[in-house]
């Protein structure tokens, strides 16, 4: 290894001495729609740099325009996209920009030496697998050419294998990606950018096959920022070296915060839960936007599954969605912590849980009188299907089933795809 290759690899992967890199991909501007994240890249770049990003992938033109932001000893590494392809313009993912192109086109736009002149620390190039033989052969030609150029000037070459096209099926996609990873390395890749295979086991195998640093890419943005963090964390767990994530960061309402969270996970060993937590809390309250409710009942089955391991259903869930006839608004019925049940209970069997703030049942005090079931204004306290023994040896035919706020992480709010039921308050109980 000569002419600066190792120092550039270190610049990218060893800013924290841990062999890991949190990188942002912002090279879509000349391949797909000119979306706001593309137009506002300068501002977004400021934010992610302040968040501590390790590297940023840019198109050659943006690399020129935004070069000043990379300056300084602690500045992030600049990665330059050295090729172009029309894949995003072929499909519905960018309808606004779709043109009647039937075939994948892939070509070089810059040489390794030119990238080096722009101040690049590394370049990335695609390798398409599974489209057709001629595209695959052309891609191999481009990758081999870059690998040779990069070796000459000491520039790390990050290859990005993509399994895309008619030969790719649900049954073979992971195999194709794994094979592609190895092909890239054999062609001379110094590192890989690659889609996550969906689970740790198969990704670990891919990372082992690759035997060079592997950066996971993010794909389309999820509205749940947790998704990107979990995916990233799993990539690390499988032995990956970090991420080169685009839309999940650049389309986030707070790209800087997202980078901080990714860095906390990669460099500071935080779990996803801890990285996401913005404040300490022990009291929460659920709220609903019924107008957002699509009636899908995911919250209801999630409630049952979280309380009865391995069981899925809607009966005796601790919340309910009242079906709207025709286009009417669904009613989202859940425990609003109104405390009427606590006030009504004649035997002090219900109380305020000191940690979660949920209503708690003290079975020993319960006489199964049913007053709480009757008084609940939202109708979400139910008779249990089976009875229970109290610690004093008495047997109750049934006991009230009451929302326990899942000990602070309500499943219903977690699974709701539209934010129709959500955690409205996280404040300390005083």
């Amino acid at each position, binding site marked *: 290894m000569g002419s600066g290759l190792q120092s550039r690899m270190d610049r990218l992967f060893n800013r924290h001495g841990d062999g890991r890199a949190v990188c942002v991909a912002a090279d879509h501007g000349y391949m797909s729609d000119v979306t706001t994240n593309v137009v506002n890249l300068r501002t977004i770049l400021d934010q992610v740099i302040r968040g501590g990003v390790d590297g940023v992938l840019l198109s050659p033109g943006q690399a020129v325009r935004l070069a000043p932001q990379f300056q300084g000893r602690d500045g992030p590494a600049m990665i330059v996209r050295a090729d172009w392809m029309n894949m995003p313009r072929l499909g519905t993912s960018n309808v606004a920009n779709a043109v009647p192109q039937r075939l994948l086109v892939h070509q070089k736009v810059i040489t390794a030496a030119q990238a080096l002149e722009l101040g690049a620390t590394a370049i990335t190039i695609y390798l398409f697998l599974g489209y057709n033989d001629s595209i695959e052969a052309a891609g191999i030609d481009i990758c081999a050419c870059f690998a040779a150029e990069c070796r000459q000037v000491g520039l790390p070459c990050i290859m990005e294998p993509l399994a895309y096209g008619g030969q790719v099926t649900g049954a073979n996609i992971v195999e194709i990606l794994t094979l592609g990873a190895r092909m890239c390395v054999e062609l001379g890749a110094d590192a890989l950018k690659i889609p996550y295979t969906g689970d740790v086991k198969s990704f670990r195998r891919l990372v082992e096959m690759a035997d060079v640093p592997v950066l996971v890419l993010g794909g*389309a943005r999820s509205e749940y920022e947790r998704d990107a963090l979990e995916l990233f964390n799993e990539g690390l767990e499988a032995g990956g070296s970090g991420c080169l994530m685009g839309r999940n960061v650049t389309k986030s309402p707070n790209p800087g915060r997202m980078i901080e969270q990714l860095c906390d996970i990669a460099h500071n060993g935080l779990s996803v839960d801890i990285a996401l937590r913005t404040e300490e809390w022990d009291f929460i309250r659920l709220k609903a936007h019924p107008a957002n409710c*699509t009636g899908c009942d995911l919250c209801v089955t999630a409630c049952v599954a979280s309380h009865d391991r391995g069981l899925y259903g809607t009966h005796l869930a601790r919340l309910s969605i009242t079906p709207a006839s025709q286009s009417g608004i669904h009613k989202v019925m859940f425990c609003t912590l109104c405390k009427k049940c606590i006030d009504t209970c004649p035997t002090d069997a219900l109380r305020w849980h000191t940690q979660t703030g949920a209503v708690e049942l003290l079975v020993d005090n319960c006489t199964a009188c049913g007053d709480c079931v009757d008084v609940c204004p939202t109708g979400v306290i139910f008779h249990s299907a089976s009875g229970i023994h109290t610690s004093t040896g008495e047997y109750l035919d049934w006991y009230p089933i009451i929302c326990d706020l899942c000990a602070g992480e309500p499943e219903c709010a977690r699974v709701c795809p539209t934010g129709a039921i959500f955690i409205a308050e996280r404040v300390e109980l005083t």
Partner: protein
Amino acid sequence: MMKLQDRSYCDQILRVDLTSGKFEVTPLPGDAMPLILGGKGLGAWLLLNEQSPGVEPLSPDNRIIFHNGPLTGTSAPTAGRFGCTTRSPATGTYCDSYCGGYWGSTLKYAGYDALVLSGKANMPVLLVIDNERVELRDAAHLLGLSVTKTTETLREEFGLDWQSLVIGPPGEKQRNIAGIFNDTRALARGGVGAVMGSKNLKAIVARGTGYVRVYDPEGYQRALQLAFRAVRMSSETTLLSREGTANILDIINVMGALPTRNFQSGQFEYAASLSGSAFAENHWVKDYACFGCPIACGKYTRPLEDGKFIEGPEYETIFAFGPNCAIGERQTVIHLNWLCDEYGLDTISAGGVVGFVMELFERGILRAADLDGIEPRFGDSGAALALVEKMAKVEGCGSWLAQGVAAIAEQYPEAQAFAMHVKGLEMPAYHPNAAKGTALAYAVSERGACHLRGAPLGELFSGSADPLSIGGKAQLFRDHQADKAVWDSACLCCFPGYGMKLKELWQLVTAATGFDYPTVADLELVGERISTLARVFNVRAGFVRQHDTLPARNLEQPLKGGPADGHVVELTPMLDEYYTIMGWDDNGIPTGGCLNRLNLSEALDL
């Protein structure tokens, strides 16, 4: 083997004989379940094993089998999906139709993996399933009522925790394009509504308070997390949430594959006014999700001046009544959609009939006198509304028009070349001449022209292959067909498949059932087996190579205009290649070797 109840099944098939009014509960074919999974697989298995292929579709002996899958009723994305399998009166083939809504999960919670109906009641009846209590009730008061009136009446009689499946007048009168409806969602294609009508069964209501128990709870929760994440991290599903299924209309038009004027061309001049974004901006007010669906591609429209509103229109409906009839007004499309949903028609087939009749009229083959004085020309909204209303109410000419394109073409042999159907099922919204893999799927699919049995639509809207080339399309279709059969058996909707792939589904299925599918490819093979079961039924019913074909408009007349200008479908080479890949003989009949490879020889008693 561990009990099926601990593997996400109920292990109960409810069988109702409408002739005697008796019912019984039988277990699932336990040993076969790993081979067929459930859903489509179970339906095909039961139909093939229990019904002789010669049984006429509208005779009492024809079974109609409603089935859900192992994932139905769990928290999997779109786990409310269910289907029905029967012999179709429109095609005479095996026919399975699927539906979202809330009835499928309800049947599962009531304790049944399948409901097998046979016989014929001697008066109109309503089937009531309240967990283990089952009874037939008089349905005289519902007779002749529209779908929504029937549904509302049942909701008032039974309450909000019941779900209904109903037919409208076209179903009662056994018309070939009648569907079965759970509120606004339908088992639409193939005339399944007519089969229900032939049994004198107006509606089925169900309530269930049971649970589904998965095999590996931790594994399943983990698989759910991965599946939902994959769905959320997909730009295609995001687009579906925003613009419904209509989001693809733009790109299909750009690709020259939007069938226009009864498939005379592949681009529509007013496509922009029918796009998903146009409907979103002007009409849609609220999202609708089926049970367990995080996408919510369903959209309610703002009521029109006359107060009518719909949940829709879907892409297929927009095609059928829009470009296919050269109608560019959204309000007309909404009205036509309303008529179909209100009375219980399949929108694809109804629109196919209207477009066909318009062309017949313009060519002078049909006259106003044949059509109760209606003079339908392309682009005539009034005529389209009048025709669909007559079909919906089964009045006048609507009575024979509602038998579908193939039946109409029987009477007018000179119209055969542009009767756009395969085996009697009207063609969906992708022009075969501009999408060769899809053309192959239309020709071969077990229920006739169908885009949902493995048509590789990605050739049109994800650029995954060149749509105008036939190269590799046989393999592409084979892969998609096997993949789709797994989804229909599991049984989930195809839309999460824009994000999660067969791998995520495999993780869900193996955790839910504990069946031994070591690799994703092993599960894909289950799909191929299930498609083959359907093929075997068709072969036994007399369907072979000569039936795997397309109208002359696709095979002989070059398409005019657009990117596919000058293209016809080169079907023969694709068909040869496909039969070879599948291990079928030249006549399209699965060989002994093929059945052996799929472990079907013994099962089929060959």
